[in-house]
């Protein structure tokens, strides 16, 4: 029983990759409706990716091999990170063996963004360097907040494996969602905005020279490389959404691999992600982008929230 559950757990990462363009499409559609537009069909990101995969690549004359390798590293690192999280199936305590935990996940995401920042420097365009330096600044501030928020969930479940945390919280019920979790959830939401290049830290739908971060790094990429990077960044967004719902609000997730439990888990997961997309669309429509020098304040607030969450979780577990 143990082996198929382990394999099934890792295969959930593929679900994230397959569903990520759909989630991005739904998000764009919701935002378009809020802007009184009709907007692109929800399957548009799939069409974009399919077209990009069939296109030729143009590589700048100044770029070395690193430029070509970087998109594959980004894609592989994101895929690895996706295989560590529960989507519709939690990991039971009885399933033996160790699986990569949340620290590995954060590390893999950092590897991906490091590769992308290096690749962006390669083409020798001014925008690439600007985007890389901004991305590194944002990530250096977001990462401590991210880790601290994740540790709150780990403290509650006494394990740092995402799959086991989800199983613990789902089985314990409402008692597992204390004030610490509420703070950590808020912190993780803010960090997710920064990590995925959403408003108010970065705007995914603009190419304004003064503000762009992620878009500045991918300006020089074309064809298949661009498709891989875009796909990976869509998967990263869905990965963070999955972390938000499955670490803190995993109720309904499948605790065993029976067909009924999996179907229920998938339905509940789709509902939760759709709800989160709606929240994100509302938040992005009603906020303006922050000035770049205000981003540290924003991420500082996220870090403080995560820290308060960690302390309250500690007090509840061990007392003063």
């Amino acid at each position: 029983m143990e082996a198929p559950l382990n394999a099934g757990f890792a295969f959930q990462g593929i679900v994230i990759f397959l569903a990520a363009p759909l989630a991005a499409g739904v998000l764009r559609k919701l935002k378009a409706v809020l802007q009184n537009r009709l907007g692109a069909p929800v399957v548009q990101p799939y069409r974009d990716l399919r077209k990009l995969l069939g296109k030729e690549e143009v590589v700048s004359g100044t770029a070395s091999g690193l430029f070509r390798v970087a998109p594959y590293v980004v894609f592989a690192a994101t895929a690895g990170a996706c295989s560590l999280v529960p989507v519709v199936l939690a990991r039971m305590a009885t399933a033996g063996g160790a699986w990569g935990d949340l620290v590995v996940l954060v590390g893999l995401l950092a590897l991906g963004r490091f590769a992308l920042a290096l690749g962006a420097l390669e083409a020798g365009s001014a925008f690439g360097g600007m985007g890389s330096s901004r991305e590194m600044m944002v990530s250096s501030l977001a990462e401590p907040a991210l880790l601290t928020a994740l540790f709150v969930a780990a403290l509650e479940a006494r394990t740092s494996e995402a799959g086991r945390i989800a199983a613990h919280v789902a089985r314990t019920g409402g008692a597992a969602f204390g004030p610490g979790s509420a703070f950590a959830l808020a912190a993780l939401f803010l960090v997710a905005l920064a990590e995925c290049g959403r408003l108010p830290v970065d705007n995914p739908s603009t190419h304004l020279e003064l503000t762009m971060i992620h878009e500045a790094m991918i300006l020089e990429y074309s064809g298949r490389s661009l498709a891989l990077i875009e796909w990976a960044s869509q998967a990263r967004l869905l990965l963070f959404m999955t972390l938000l719902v499955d670490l803190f609000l995993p109720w309904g997730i499948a605790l065993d691999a029976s067909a009924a439990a999996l179907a229920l888990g998938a339905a509940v997961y789709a509902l939760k992600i759709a709800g989160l997309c709606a929240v994100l669309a509302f938040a992005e429509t009603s906020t303006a982008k922050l000035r770049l020098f205000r981003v540290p304040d924003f991420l500082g607030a996220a870090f403080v929230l995560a820290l308060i969450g960690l302390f309250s979780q500690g007090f509840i577990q061990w007392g003063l």
Partner: protein
Amino acid sequence: MFRILRRCARTGLATLPLEPARDADYELAGEKLRESIRRLRGGRSLYVREVDAGSCNGCEIEISALTSPVYDAERFGVHVTASPRHADVLLVTGPVTRQMELALKMTYEAAPEPKIVVACGDCALDGGAFAGSYAVAGAVEDVLPVDIRIKGCPPKPSAILGALLAAVERAGKA
């Protein structure tokens, strides 16, 4: 925050249905277009890079209206992009001035195959009011192979979008 959302709800859908393009508005020029559309999987996703080769900015105003809620080019998968590396369509406006001739050629080289060149507006087609000027190198056709020609001075936003989509559809079927 809620003021914006309330206003969104009050306004309702601003997007107008697209008027079908009239045949007099555009011409297909290149033989290459059909092959390009095939390799672009039917043209349901088009990233457009706008190149101003010396235009009076009349065409630019009409093109920037395409991204507004009223025309909403994104509903057809048409997306204006910031980099020629991402582009499937080069939308060239204005007569090609001597200063912009090299830049236009470099933009064309920077875009990955398959790429579609659209000459947009009367100046791009034959130089328009600027034809024969000492500062003008010629029409877009004199510099790049043009696939689609869109007439008008300036063409209406609906005509630009309609002509682009109709041309892509016709070439895809042919």
